[in-house]
């Protein structure tokens, strides 16, 4: 029962942390709850589909279908997180100053919500499909310990959701004027970690065979498969023995996101004095 609880807890919290960050990053944006719900619901439906067809997906591409699938959805999430951060760099400050949530701001505010909804969906899909496969395995085995193990699964689900909620509440304790910077930073690191993870899957699938030597090893300090190691892996992409290609992906993602954010911010500021810029600015501040 304890083993089941731990496995489910781990998977749920890995998805839950990402949902928590997305919720904090969209604090005050109208209808965000709806979009996050879409993401979770879509992710759960997708998780059941992926679990059902796990054999078929796995056997694609000469037995490397799972790796290609994981890498693809991770890279999709990286693109969506990048888009969100860049969009917010242009509009976010204005939005944060006047969170009223009426009229045109709904359409303006919802643009990055679609992207974040996909990120939530991807997170729930990846971790959820493992939970579904695992619990389905228990359920189909029968035996006397079955009920206890399923109870463990349910407790793990609750504990994971609770811990994720704590993380969200913790983020909300960040003063409002700093919340934007904090969530932008978290999303940047989240994206970098996902990009490195995608590289790992591409390597595992045999699609990337350069720079595969371990650059450093910090497993003596913090093992990646410990609970803290796993949480840090999800949040900021902690890897106790990264190789060159993963480090390049990690650093490259951060550089690209920060550069695009900076460019967007300057671009917006430059456009502001013009009439069009003003109108645009008004739209995004209402």
């Amino acid at each position, binding site marked *: 029962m304890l*083993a089941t609880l731990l*496995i489910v807890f781990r998977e749920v919290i890995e998805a839950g942390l990402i949902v928590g960050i997305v919720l904090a990053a969209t604090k005050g944006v109208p209808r965000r709850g709806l979009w996050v719900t879409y993401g979770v619901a879509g992710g759960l439906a997708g998780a059941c589909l992926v*679990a059902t067809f*796990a*054999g078929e997906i*796995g*056997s694609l*591409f*000469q*037995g*490397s279908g*799972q*790796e*290609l699938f994981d890498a693809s959805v991770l890279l999709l999430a990286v693109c969506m997180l990048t888009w969100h951060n860049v969009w917010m760099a242009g509009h976010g400050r204005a939005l944060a100053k006047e969170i009223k949530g009426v009229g045109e701001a709904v359409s303006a505010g919802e643009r990055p919500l679609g992207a974040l909804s996909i990120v939530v969906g991807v997170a729930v899909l990846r971790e959820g*499909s*493992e939970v579904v*496969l*695992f619990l*389905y*395995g228990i359920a*189909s*085995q029968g035996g006397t310990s079955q009920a206890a193990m399923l109870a463990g699964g349910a407790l793990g689900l609750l504990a994971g959701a609770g811990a994720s909620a704590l993380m969200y509440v913790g983020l909300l304790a960040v003063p409002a004027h700093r919340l934007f910077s904090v969530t932008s930073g978290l999303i940047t690191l989240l994206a970098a970690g996902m990009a490195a993870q995608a590289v*790992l899957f591409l*390597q*595992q*699938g*045999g*699609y990337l*065979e350069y720079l*595969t*030597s371990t650059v450093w090893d910090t*497993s003596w300090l913090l*093992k*990646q*498969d410990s609970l803290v190691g796993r949480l840090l892996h999800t949040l900021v992409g902690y890897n*106790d*023995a990264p*190789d060159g290609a993963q480090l390049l992906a990690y650093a490259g993602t951060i550089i690209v996101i920060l550069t695009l954010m900076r460019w967007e911010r300057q671009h917006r500021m430059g456009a502001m004095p013009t009439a069009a810029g003003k109108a645009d600015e008004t739209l995004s501040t209402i």
Partner: protein
Amino acid sequence: MTLRSLQFGALAAVLLGMTGASAANPLTLTIKDHRFTPAEIHVKADEPSQFVLVNNDSTAEEFDSASLKVEKVVAGNAQGVVRIRPLAPGRYPFMGEYHSETAQGIVVAE
């Protein structure tokens, strides 16, 4: 979409062809009753290796190894390819995450 899959397929075929030459006779790791056979796999150090993971149980298993940096889900009655990066000589434990009390094994690089 189809073209894309075709391209991926072609890419996969080329890459597999390249690695396939060095591993003409691939190792097989079998899961049955939530145990690995063989439970100890020997590979050459400092060379990439790969094996076919055959799951003969009806339920899914996740081949998981922090030291090998591999996480691979294999559905029930299905199989997949596990690729291992070049390893320094040493012992690298792995497990089946969904049944870790019985599903344990080790890769020995030498």
